[in-house]
């Protein structure tokens, strides 16, 4: 009975079940928790995996896999004005090319999960988790040593991230962004007040769900969510992929401008 409860997959709808598992997790020693326990029919590798070890390459899918979960929160007037400017090209049914990432500017968060079909990789040390992003050959630090963002710190493209484990979920809290990036390729803007919480939930050996909560009270009237479903790619190696401005320009002139050649150019 206990085993069957322990092995029930975690889903959002099963709050009671999740609480029960959490309560059990508090009293059951780590060595006999379900993720460490051998499972009938599971491969040796799966039985042995440590859910707090996220090392390896993870693939989110084409376009990076970033999706809005539910609905985009209503924008404030200030946010709406910025969104309208970002997406002016849509009024003439053109492809959005105003995205700063087209000019190879850093995508910021969570936009970096929505660039191309590339992987991410985790490297973990006790004080710091590093996430490498293949799409633009960059990385970010997640501090696990309890430090706080320094007061008056400069705003950052990727923000300042601190992490903690909640059960076996890695929860990352990020603030301190500049307002130069978009939240995604659809043109949703953010202010420097942006606060992002990422929850990495490893459902099993090969699958990891990332839930992203976006809270920007200056540009949106309420928090909203995005997410990515990752699959582990044990056979892949992290590749070299840079954003090259001349390649971006060439792509834009050969593809985007040709595809939209008969459509009016919007005036900002």
């Amino acid at each position: 009975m206990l085993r069957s409860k322990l092995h029930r997959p975690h889903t959002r709808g099963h709050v009671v079940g999740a609480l029960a598992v959490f309560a059990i997790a508090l009293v059951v020693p780590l060595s006999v928790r379900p993720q460490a326990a051998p499972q009938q029919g599971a491969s040796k590798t799966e039985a042995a995996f440590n859910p707090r070890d996220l090392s390896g390459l993870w693939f989110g899918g084409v376009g990076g896999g970033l999706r809005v979960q539910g609905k985009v929160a209503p924008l404030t007037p200030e946010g709406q004005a910025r969104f309208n400017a970002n997406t002016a090209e849509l009024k003439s049914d053109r492809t959005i090319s105003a995205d700063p990432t087209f000019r190879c500017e850093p995508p910021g968060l969570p936009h970096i999960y929505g660039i191309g079909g590339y992987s991410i990789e985790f490297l973990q040390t006790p004080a710091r988790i590093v996430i490498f992003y293949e799409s633009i050959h960059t990385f970010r630090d997640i501090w696990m040593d309890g430090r706080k963002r320094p007061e008056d710190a400069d705003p950052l493209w990727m923000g300042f991230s601190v992490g903690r484990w909640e059960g076996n979920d890695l929860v990352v809290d990020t603030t301190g962004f500049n307002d130069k990036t978009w939240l995604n390729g659809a043109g949703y803007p953010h202010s420097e007040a942006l606060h992002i919480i990422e929850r990495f939930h490893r459902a099993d050996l090969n699958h990891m769900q990332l839930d992203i909560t976006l809270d920007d009270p200056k540009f949106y009237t309420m928090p909203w969510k995005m997410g990515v479903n990752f699959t582990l790619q044990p056979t892949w190696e992290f590749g070299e992929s840079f954003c090259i401005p001349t390649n971006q320009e060439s792509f834009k002139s050969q593809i985007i401008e040709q595809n939209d050649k008969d459509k009016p150019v919007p005036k900002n």
Partner: protein
Amino acid sequence: MKTILACCALAMLLGVAPRPMLAHHGSAAYDMSKSITLDGAVTSLDWNNPHCLLHFDSKDDKGEVQHWTIELYNPLWMTRAGWTRNSLKAGDPINITFHGTKSGATNGYIRDGDGKLTSNGKELGFHQAGDERTIER
């Protein structure tokens, strides 16, 4: 259904067209509801970010040569799908199935799942080893 239509109409009025976020720049310019199949000869394969581009010539119904440019995936994706930058060279004959543009520009978009490319009887695929997905979504 009515609600969905009303939502879409409202969204379009507000300039917030609901569109899938697929590739880096989206696939909105392409007609994803139908495919084009052509025979042609490769002129070049550009092996660059953000997308590799395949250039080829193909004769249209009137016998006139049209030049086509097809968006493939990024170089790492292509590598994981078994390609190298030398998989196709100028002059190689191809048979290719892809999505054309809504505007009529002779560009195209090929994707893992419903795209197909063969050269000299050999299929060149777009599915990455280890990718659980059968089609992009």
